[in-house]
């Protein structure tokens, strides 16, 4: 009775409905709000791209927040992912207690960011923090630097747990990717006399290109829209030094009551994520084609 296309339509419908009501419509409404001067309750004044202009020309906090989020992105890409990949390769080679380690590395991913935030606040505490105690013990002099309440180190101190938290997540994806590579390649390489290092660089990594691409996109978009850990640990302070766009947006929306301006920042985050995903896809196009040829 139903044609093939209508089948598709029916099965797509539930997901489509959810996506439209909870994804597309809110996105479009924040896009619309971002063009207004609006306090969330009173009248809405249309000001065109005024909010966007304000963001980049009048708001030093926003520029700083964007730079912070780029720093976090860099740390995720060039510190987090390489560590994850290295761990995944080690584990996939068959280490003793492989399953055991896999679970241990994954634990931070399952713990709520609130808990992780609280844990690291304690580690960075000036008086009883683990870090300062360690420094005090090593140097023999009392060290009571407050990492999270000093504008120079507040943001960096949140980057450390942010990077640490998701190492296990990416590791698991890489691990699954490596496990799915056929053993034949390695056997052939061994017969040809390839070293372990050569098989890693010439077989594993090229064949893993699609997985690396996916992880890169996750890491980038995750960093650009980071919120929870930073909100818990510093709340964007002190003196707005550790904001990322998402915490600044929250502050503008709910503390300062600037709905229009906050929506503009929210919209900016969406655009930023899309642009970066597009760039990553482009960059990996060649590598992915090679991977599928092999």
């Amino acid at each position, binding site marked *: 009775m139903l044609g093939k296309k209508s089948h598709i339509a029916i099965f797509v*419908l539930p997901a489509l409905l959810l996506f*439209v009501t909870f994804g597309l419509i809110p996105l479009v409404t924040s896009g619309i709000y971002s063009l207004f001067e609006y306090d969330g309750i009173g009248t809405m004044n249309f000001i065109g791209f005024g909010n966007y202009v304000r963001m980049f020309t009048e708001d030093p906090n926003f520029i700083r927040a964007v730079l912070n989020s780029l720093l976090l992105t860099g740390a995720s890409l060039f510190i987090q992912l390489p560590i994850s990949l290295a761990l995944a390769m080690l584990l996939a080679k068959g280490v003793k207690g492989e399953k055991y380690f896999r679970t241990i590395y994954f634990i931070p991913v399952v713990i709520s960011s609130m808990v992780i935030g609280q844990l690291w606040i304690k580690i960075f505490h000036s008086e009883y923090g683990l870090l300062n105690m360690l420094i005090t013990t090593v140097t023999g002099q009392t060290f009571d630097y407050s990492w999270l309440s000093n504008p120079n180190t507040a943001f960096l101190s949140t980057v450390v747990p942010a990077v640490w938290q998701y190492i296990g997540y990416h590791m698991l994806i890489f691990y699954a990717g490596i496990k799915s590579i056929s053993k034949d390649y390695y056997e052939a390489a061994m017969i040809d006399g390839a070293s372990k290092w050569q098989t890693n660089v010439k077989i594993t990594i090229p064949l893993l290109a699609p997985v690396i691409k996916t992880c890169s996109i996750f890491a980038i978009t995750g960093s650009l829209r980071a919120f929870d850990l930073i909100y818990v640990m510093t709340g964007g302070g002190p003196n707005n030094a550790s904001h990322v766009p998402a915490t600044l947006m929250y502050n503008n929306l709910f*503390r300062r009551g600037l709905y229009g301006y906050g929506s503009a920042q929210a919209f900016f985050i969406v655009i930023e994520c899309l642009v970066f995903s597009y760039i990553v896809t482009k960059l990996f196009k060649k590598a992915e084609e090679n991977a599928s040829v092999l």
Partner: protein
Amino acid sequence: MKKLLGKIFAAVLSATMVIGLAGCGKSEDNPSGGEGTDNVTLNVWHQWSNDTNELKRLYDTAVAEYIKDNPHVKIETQTLDTEAYKTKISAEFAGNARGIDVFYYWGAGTARKLVNADKLLPLDEYITDEVRGRILEGSTTAFSYDGKLYSVPSFSWFMTLYANKDLFDQAGAKLPTTYDELLEAVEKLSALDGVTPLAAGAKDGWNAAFIYQAMALREVGASSINAMLSGETPFSEEGYKEAAEKVVELYNKGAFGRNPLESGNDDANAAFGNERAAMRIMGSWLANGIYTDETATIDPSNVVVLNMPVIPGKGDVTDYAGGFVESFWVNKNTAHQEEAAKFAIYINERMGVAAYETGTGFSGWTTEADESNLNPLFIEIKEILGNSREGVLAWDTSLDAEPASIHNEMVQTLFAPNANVDDFIKAHMDAINK
């Protein structure tokens, strides 16, 4: 194919509408509740969410009595923590806030946004002459806008300096009455091991702001500050800059410990309650906490309350920080305006009297109250209040949301090394004089 697509499109549209309707339907049904002719359900929201909170208990008792006297009224109460509560109320009133009939809120600058958007019900016609006669004179300023009264007072707060007499004796310091004496005391107290002279709790912006506001009160004086907060006069350098410099001076003398931005309100209260801090600048509610907090080790008889230290030659010793600002308000869109207004007036009076009887705040009503259980600290505060005349509310409740949050953030910068007072003043001018 085209026809089919059309059908699917129509189906999607109608499904969306059904979902939308279901959403609306639910929220519209809720406030009216009962189907009986006279039965009324009121949805009431407040921010005393913690079960250990004295005010929550008092509220529940008052509601139970109200229901007993008005059997046709059902009260459904919802609570959230302060920050989440503020967010929730803003979000609800972006729409019609259909699920809220009566709600707790802050007057002055905070509720002005709601009044301007015509979201609140003026209560004038519901306040009988008899009720009006019981309202304490001068306690309604924060609730009246354009000559209309949108709420009635409940209880007020009063800022004092709490000091640990024991620690002062150990340090050989004198209880301060002037700013210079405060500096002297700070110097002596900081010699004590493991004791912060004055716990600031500056991680919470409003705690930091309290200390600055106390200095500004003495530098500038209440009437000038009130004129500035209400927008009659601009925020200028005069006085406000000196106040900021005094906070910086205190910080540099080690008054707040090395890293005051690391601990918030709760940490600071705990530090004072466990004798790790010698002083605390806080509202009158702390007095009750000193007696009721089970984790505190401090002997309440060791605590003294002092008027804010004065700066000789400036300000007026009768100026104070505090006043009436919290109360219950009525959503204009409520389906039961009369019942909601009646309840709001009732609960404000009851909470005002009950808060006074338990020593948490001062009642905005002349209604007779039972004073037998007042704690000694609270009686001391009451005496200081008796000698006070003009009050200034916390700035973040008087100003609009944006300057209020900029004020709290900028004050925090004074609690760190290399604070820049000029930036502080400039940020305030930009935000407040806009």
